[in-house]
């Protein structure tokens, strides 16, 4: 048997070689290499279509993994900060003396004042009110022009 005869038989054989071909194969390194390559070529492999489909599905699945958004990443810090602020405000509110239901304006006019902190609060309130009046007046003047 020649190498050419062997190759033609090997290509058509579905895993079964004749006795003569088997004998030739045992003694011929060239045909051993040919057989090896032929079996590599014929080994089962996914079709290009199947490859494409799986990579496409993978792309979809990987991009839709539930990922934490930035606000989800920071929300626990936000809640912690809000809780601290709430506690501080509560402590501050409890530390204030009762105002007796009067507005800071009335308190300032009546001269009824409490602690130094309270006086400062009223002063700041009045200053703010005055500034607001000035701004309103300026706006009125601008509008008039």
């Amino acid at each position, binding site marked *: 048997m020649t190498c*050419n005869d062997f*190759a*033609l038989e090997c*290509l*058509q054989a579905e895993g079964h070689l004749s006795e003569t071909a088997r004998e030739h194969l045992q003694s011929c390194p060239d045909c051993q*290499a*040919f057989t*090896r*390559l*032929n079996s*590599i*070529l*014929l*080994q*089962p*492999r*996914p*079709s290009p279509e*199947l*490859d494409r*489909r*799986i*990579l496409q*599905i*993978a*792309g979809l*699945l*990987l*991009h839709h*993994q539930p*990922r934490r958004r930035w606000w989800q990443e920071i929300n626990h810090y936000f809640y912690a900060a809000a809780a601290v602020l709430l506690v501080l405000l509560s402590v501050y509110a409890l530390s204030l003396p009762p105002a007796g239901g009067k507005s800071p304006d009335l308190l300032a006019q009546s001269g009824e004042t409490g602690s130094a902190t309270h006086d400062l609060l009223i002063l700041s309130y009045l200053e703010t009110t005055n500034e607001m009046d000035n701004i309103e007046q300026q706006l009125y003047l601008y509008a008039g022009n």
Partner: protein
Amino acid sequence: MQLEPDDQLSDMILIQRCITGDDESFTILYQRYRLPLFAYLHKLLPNQHDRVDDFFQQVWIKALKNFSGYSDQQRFLAWLCRIAHNLVMDYYRSTDSREMSEIQENVPADSLDPQEVLLQQGLEEALQQAIRKLSPEQQEIVRMRISGISFKDIAAQKNISLNTALGRMHYAVQNLRQLLADFL
């Protein structure tokens, strides 16, 4: 500092990147293990080509959904084969098949060693490059044979004689042998 090429990264790093949504890393993993997994499924489901395709897809989807549960205590291929094995066993159980016990005895879930997988992957890449260097006629016949079409059907489809089809394939294999001399 020299960065490691992506295709040489470990399975675990690629899986961690997949978890963060990196599909390039998945492509590398897929190219690395598609052939051994496909061959393994062919052993589990002999002569059931369509079913193999179906299970192959199912295995990858299941793997993708469970990447966070993978630990490198187990080799990735063994992990994939385990998923494949369980899916096929569930299928055989649901069909009350007798083949199940034969498969459980004869096909271990981890039948390829990593060195063999790497060699196979390298050879496969070289083979695909070599095929692209063949003449268009030879490329066509090789691709038809790879997709499992018989010489008789190739001859009929291409309107050539059986001997011409065999001759073209013969020359194609000879040329591939020269192109792949380093691997064979």
